[in-house]
């Protein structure tokens, strides 16, 4: 399927997708654009640390729904 930039920059609860740098760094200065649109805290939230594994995501959801 085809998705556009606006999706990539906001899909993560209003924060950018983790893949956005890899996807766009060859086409534009994506880092500067991200810094213009988001605060440092927001970028840290979007990119800091390792993403959760699928099992971790499942357990976390179960814990919050139970």
């Amino acid at each position, binding site marked *: 399927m085809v998705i556009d930039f606006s999706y990539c920059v906001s899909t993560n609860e209003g924060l950018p997708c983790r893949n956005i740098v890899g996807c766009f760094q060859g086409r*534009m200065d994506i880092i500067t654009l991200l810094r213009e649109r988001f605060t440092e805290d927001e970028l840290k939230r979007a990119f800091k640390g390792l993403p959760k594994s699928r099992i971790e995501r499942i357990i976390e959801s179960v814990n919050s729904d139970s």
Partner: protein
Amino acid sequence: MKDRKIVLPEKEIPRQWYNVQADLPNPLPPPLNPATGQPITPDMLAPVFPMNLIEQEVSSERWIDIPEQVLEKYLIWRPTPLHRAYSLEKFLGTPARIYFKNEGVSPPGSHKPNTAIAQAYYNKVFGIKRLATETGAGQWGSALAFACNQFGLECKVYMVRVSYNQKPYRRIMMETWGAKCVPSPSPDTNAGRKFLAQNPEHPGSLGISISEAIEDAVTSKDTRYSLGSVLNHVLLHQTVIGLETHKQLAMIGEYPDIVIGCAGGGSNFSGFALPFVRDKIHGKELKIIAAEPTSCPTMTKGPYVYDFGDTAETTPLIPMHSLGHGFVPPPIHAGGLRYHGMAPILSRLVVDGFVEARAYAQLETFAAGITFARTEGYIPAPETNHAIACVLEEAKKAKEEGKEQVIIMNWSGHGIIDLAAYDAYLSGKLEDFVLPDEEIQKLIKDLEKFPKPGK
């Protein structure tokens, strides 16, 4: 007249799945509960999966019997044919012998029902009446809808809204098989309502859809969750692909030098390759290559991590493979939505050197898919094109070296319902140049109508 397909008789369909966990030189550590940091126990997964599947998830038995009821359903389309790609070989002028395993012949059009059927069966015998799941582009949702219909289960699919709007045919497939498919975020769950309150037109994400599906499973009667990739039991079910291929090659006295598949969550690649990984673990010399996109790498690069005051950097999980190509990704993606999380089994095999990971840029993969369609006739799914790009690379190498390499690949699915991606490629929307300033300013201006994250 040469035979183009190696067809395994139905009575020869594999009767057991292969569990690579029995042979891993470095066993996987158990996953940890993020809340406690302690290993997850089976009872923690009981709200989402039936115990029979949890047992498979943690099993170290090498061979697990495929139930007769699952085999009966597999026979609707299995064993799948193994094709000799004579036309592609001729076009490339390569001495390599290329074979592709056609998983596109299943009713949903991909390898996904190999595990969907198994999961529907195990849930049914456990007494479950309904399955909930998420889907991005709709491949998994349609496979599960098909499987649930086969076993008389209800099926609820939470489909990422941007995909729901763009791909009506996958939704229609699901509904034709009796499933209920809703755009996510939906008003049907607390998770969905939270995001809709922020933005009634929220485009959704796989993360939100996963949350909705799990909430549905945990809070609804006689309902469990099902997923199409990453987990051990999913890879286990998919090994029927590689086990059939083993038999088909034996019928013609062939054995591969190179095994290739595309890798997103890892299920089709693992299903195809794990029986050959077993041979490699026991000393057989062969190359096993997992092809992934440069835009969403999970094996060739770690996920991007942002450090305060610094450029975003990749985590050094494993060395990066450089292909030396100048292709760059476009401002629109035709490769589908991806959730972070390669199958741990596959990650382990890459780190331990049994599987080589390579990344391919989007334009190269579409060019490969077009080459395949114009030689072998079949139009591949965009994901499958990553494997084809790798096949072309290895076939070219074989030509340069004058070697009669035997290359096999998993043709994981057809692209007949993903033609919007080919349309974007053929109409030149997926271009290969740096965006000019005015285009970038237009993108930034378009963002103004989208809400910024809350504090």
